[in-house]
């Protein structure tokens, strides 16, 4: 065993990268669920965002343009879900699952000519002085811009949900759509916006995997991150900061366990491999011991005549 081989600074820096796709997808889904809609299609929207972002980044040579395209693609796919569930009144669980299957198939089809292609690199930002600081520099000031965007987005979602009128309306729609409707709020319109926001975030998360974390395109490359994001929202009790904590914990333990393995720590590998899931669940369950619960209208369809 040689723990000195693990560089804590590089470790923290890489766990932030590992956590970002999960964070983006979870924050998006959190807003969707706060509005009372359960969209199980996160995985499908992520993988669609991954290939759309990848394709546009390769064709245009600009990773940023790729991220924009990924957000649009994720949102576009989520509109399909919105049409099915909000206007056609289809079952949300079934529609969400089919959205995932559809997204996986669609991305495989779109991605056929992009296997083995290398995307343009997204440079890390470099702030003079700050980025060169020891320890703090690489951890706080040496990442790509999307990673910071994820943190800013978390803060923004938290603020909007907690303090703004928009957040109040969104929560009202999610808690009791009949009451919100009686007050004159456009329930379907608000839910449509929330669903599109969730789709855009999932698309961004997917593109982060294909453009920065891996970076390449392979079929099925999101490998279940969307499902973990869904679980994370529940365990985080629909609170943005807890989702951030959960994502960093999950990303962190994933990276740490690989580090421990490489350093030859004598813990059986099976325990290390299950540790990210286990630790994240335990911590978030302990945190959610307070009274917070799911939005009351979660998963229920709304129709004005009922």
């Amino acid at each position, binding site marked *: 065993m040689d723990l000195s081989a693990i*560089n804590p600074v*590089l470790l923290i820096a890489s766990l932030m990268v590992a956590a970002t796709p999960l964070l983006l997808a979870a924050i998006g889904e959190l807003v969707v669920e706060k509005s009372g809609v359960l969209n199980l299609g996160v995985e499908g929207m992520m993988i669609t965002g991954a290939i759309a972002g990848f394709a546009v980044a390769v064709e245009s040579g600009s990773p940023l343009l790729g991220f924009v395209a990924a957000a649009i693609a994720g949102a576009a796919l989520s509109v399909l879900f919105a049409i099915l569930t909000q206007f056609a009144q289809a079952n949300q669980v079934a529609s969400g699952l089919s959205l995932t299957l559809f997204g996986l198939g669609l991305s495989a089809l779109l991605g056929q000519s992009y296997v083995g292609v290398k995307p343009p690199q997204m440079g890390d930002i470099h702030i003079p002085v700050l980025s060169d600081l020891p320890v703090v520099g690489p951890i706080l000031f040496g990442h790509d811009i999307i990673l910071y965007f994820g943190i800013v987005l978390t803060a923004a979602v938290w603020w909007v949900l907690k303090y703004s009128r928009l957040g109040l309306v969104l929560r009202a729609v999610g808690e009791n759509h009949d009451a919100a409707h009686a007050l004159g709020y456009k329930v379907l319109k608000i839910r449509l916006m929330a669903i599109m926001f969730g789709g855009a975030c999932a698309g961004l998360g997917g593109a982060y*995997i294909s453009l920065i974390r891996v970076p390449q395109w392979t079929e099925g490359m999101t490998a279940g991150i969307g499902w973990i994001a869904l679980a994370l929202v529940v365990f985080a009790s629909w609170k943005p900061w807890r989702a951030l904590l959960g994502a960093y914990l999950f990303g962190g333990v994933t990276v740490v366990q690989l580090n421990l393995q490489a350093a030859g720590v004598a813990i059986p590998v099976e325990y290390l491999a299950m540790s990210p899931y286990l630790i994240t669940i335990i911590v978030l369950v302990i945190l959610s011991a307070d009274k917070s619960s799911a939005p009351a209208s979660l998963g229920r369809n709304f129709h004005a005549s009922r």
Partner: protein
Amino acid sequence: MKLTNLLTSAAMALGLAAGAAMADTTKVGFVYVGPVGDGGWTYEHDQGRKAVEAEFGDQVETVYVENVAEGPDAERVMTQMALEGADLIFTTSFGYMDPTINVAKKFPNVKFEHATGYKRADNVSTYSARFYEGRAVQGTIAGHMTESNIVGYIGSYPIPEVVRGINSAYIHAKKVNPDVEFKIVWAFTWFDPAKEADAAKVLIEQGADVILQHTDSTAPQAAAQAAGNVITFGQASDMSEYGPKPRVSSIIDDWAPYYIARTKAVIDGNWESVDTWDGIGAGMVGIGEISDAVPADVKEAALAIKASIADGSYHPFTGPIKKQDGSDWLAEGETADDGTLAGMNFYVEGLDGDIPQ
């Protein structure tokens, strides 16, 4: 599993039921563990499938299902294929071993071919490639090329096939560089690009400047490229898009000749259950071109090893070799028998850590 595939196979099932004209075509099914676009393991099996189609044209009809999880799902997919009239089914992952045996019992007239396993029956053959021969060549290059003397190895599952590869690579790296050290990370997946990329990054952060992988995607290659001064080897497929550096060579699985021969046997009606284990000599294991990033003398040494394995004059597991615990395994000049290799569950002397049990 893509919807289009399901639809195609459903349509084909209908076609089989309806058209008497199709009765004399031989139907060959393939079960894949990853997507055909993985650029590695499954990609090469699918190339084999295409080669079968090209060889026999209208005489055969092939179907495949990709992304089939190892376990009950695999059994369902195989049963479905057999019900749809497949005459020969290739199941292409180690974890399909028991499902293949189970389904084969129910369909005695359907022939099954299971890759990399060791359980056979009257209608189940097994086939595999001696990847460890390719690992010997990789180990030689790795031992010469590493400057930090740390070689990172991304393992998938702790099964004999993977352990053999680690041992073979280590023995040959050690032979040319006594100071070399292997760091091994088990990913517990065949295909998860994000996880494979993380594993590669971790190994690089801990000083490895050579990455060997036994997982299926090209993600570790991309991670090595981003890190700069690191070399890698293509796994299962050439992965030449990452050459000349980081990818300096590769192990290429060439299943096409085998798939064609076995399909022909079914068509001719002389198929028998066999156990095939071919290596560099028979062409089932190919060594991808060694790139210019490798110095000429190292390239020469690697090619010399390859040639001596191909003509049978050298066996990668030739004594004296001790097991990790220091007990004797092979005496001076003794070579390993196939039985021990097929069930290999121990590291050789010098490797650190335990194999997960």
